[in-house]
């Protein structure tokens, strides 16, 4: 028993423990399945995360993101299937090299920031340290001596982020990190996440806020009802299709024009204008001329790259 308990204290202090870490598969799941009675929360999920990636785990509410994180972080037991961290190099002490927030920031309400972080440090088997730098990074230095229960939600979230950085982990995992925050809180957390990603860590982030996943992540895995829908780099998931927004005084005539127009792949009515998915080579000035020739008075014409949100909805709605 004493050897097993000592192992984390030995390895966690050695930052070079992982050999050839740049080319490592940090996480791999194989047919990961989780059932609660007749409900299948996860259905044979297979995906990989390579070192240095910033992987967004996307899915609607109830899709299985938190279940997936719960299993790979050891708090839930899978019904079948497997997963492996760091190609098995750390054995059962793998989580000592991971910093994570799952669902909510979890700390002792009657203890202050320093004492709560010290508990994390002890669990990680690290020597005593001063947390000033970490608390500074998450802008909590001024409130370090206040008890956790006096913190606002944003401050609690920031303390949780601080805790994930203790021991300079190889992987950082966040589950809906901006949930419930006001716009200022969201911006703060987003900036903090970007700084963490910029430090070269492997990041896994579960979110349904596609905008921030698009801005922060290099790769994305899309899940729906526990099943894998797509996985790959953000660039490969996003198609080359463009989106144009076009509106006129009389949208009925415009609609007829667009239906027959070459290069238009899909049309949706959005409020007072039409949103169309078009080929990458689409020329909007040509569309403008065609509309004028037919006497259609265009009052809106915008071309933009397809948003991940549209791609996401298309994938999850099976269109």
């Amino acid at each position, binding site marked *: 028993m004493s050897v097993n308990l000592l192992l984390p204290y030995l390895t966690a202090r050695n930052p070079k423990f992982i050999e050839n870490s740049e080319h490592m598969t940090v996480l791999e799941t194989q047919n990961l399945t989780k059932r609660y009675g007749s409900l299948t929360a996860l259905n044979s999920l297979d995906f990989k995360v390579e070192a240095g990636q910033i992987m967004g785990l996307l899915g609607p509410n109830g899709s299985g993101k938190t279940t997936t994180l719960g299993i790979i972080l050891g708090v839930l*037991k899978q019904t079948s299937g497997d997963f492996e961290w760091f190609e098995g190099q750390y054995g059962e002490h793998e989580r000592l090299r991971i910093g994570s927030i799952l669902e909510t920031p979890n700390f002792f*309400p009657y203890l202050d920031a320093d004492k709560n972080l010290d*508990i994390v440090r002890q669990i990680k088997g690290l020597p005593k340290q001063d947390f000033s730098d970490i608390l500074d990074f998450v802008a909590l230095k001024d409130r370090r001596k206040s008890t956790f229960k006096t913190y606002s939600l944003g401050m609690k979230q920031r303390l949780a982020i601080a805790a994930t950085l203790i021991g300079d982990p190889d992987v950082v995992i966040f589950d809906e990190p901006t949930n419930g925050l006001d716009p200022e809180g969201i911006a703060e957390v987003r900036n903090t996440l970007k700084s963490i990603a910029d430090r070269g860590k492997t990041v896994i982030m579960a979110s349904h806020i596609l905008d921030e996943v698009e801005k922060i992540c290099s790769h994305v895995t899309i899940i729906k009802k526990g099943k894998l829908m797509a996985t790959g780099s953000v660039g490969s998931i996003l198609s080359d299709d463009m989106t144009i927004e076009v509106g006129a005084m009389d949208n009925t005539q415009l609609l007829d024009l667009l239906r027959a127009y070459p290069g238009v792949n899909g049309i949706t009515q959005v409020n007072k204008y039409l949103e169309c998915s078009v080929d990458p080579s689409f020329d909007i000035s040509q569309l403008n001329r065609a509309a004028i020739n037919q006497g259609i008075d265009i009052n809106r014409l915008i071309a933009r790259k397809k948003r991940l949100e549209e791609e996401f909805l298309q994938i999850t709605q099976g269109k």
Partner: protein
Amino acid sequence: MLKLLKLEWSKFSGSSIIRLLGVFFLLFFPLVMYIGMELPKLPSFLPDKLSFYQFPAIWDYLGYAGNWMVFFFLGVMVIYTITTEVEYKTMRQSIINGMTRKSYFTSKLLTVTTLSLFATFYYILVAFIFGFINTESVDMSNLFDSSLMIPRFFLMSLSYLSFAMMIGLLLKKSGVAVFVYLTYVLFIESAIRRILKWILNTELVQYFPMNVTDDLMPLPFYKYAQFLENMDGPKIVINAPTEAIIATAVYVVLWVGGIYYLFTRRDL
């Protein structure tokens, strides 16, 4: 092991409930004995109450007081060290942060064992204080009771506290766990035993877990049973020390083993 204990200390030394329960245990354990000195005269077939505070009888009487103190204050304390971690989700977070289920369970078991040891050392200290103050001449022949009171006190504490640990890990909510723990020990088990005795008419009901635990530190007046036999009313049956020791040890192993098996396999 020491690191795990230090971790538990870091988690709970700042909790006002835990502190309060600890202070009450330290205060009331000797206090209840002291208050006993002020009780009115006892029935004539019982010895003069001063003898309760002398060696070797002090071990019996203090042991019985300790039975209540450990069951209540330390038992509830152990339940809180588990249920508050479920409520604050710090149990989950400990696993996420890198503890294995085995080392987390070990930390809780170490808490139970350490509290049992601490309670036993405190029992010895208080017994020495009362005993040396009230016994005229102390020598090796009267200093210690011959019936292994000190190891029995430790085993009794271990039994109550590991039972509390099991209740805490199974039921998870503070209020429910404390309620079930207290009512089971105080009322429910005796009720079940009475019903089974009435239905099955077997003496095996004496081997229920809280009964055998209680019999490790029984009400000291059982020594005067010869007088009680002549009195009316239901007979009190107390397990002999050896039987109580073996049965309690078996239960501790079963609870700890069983709850370890469950804890390492279920969702947190």
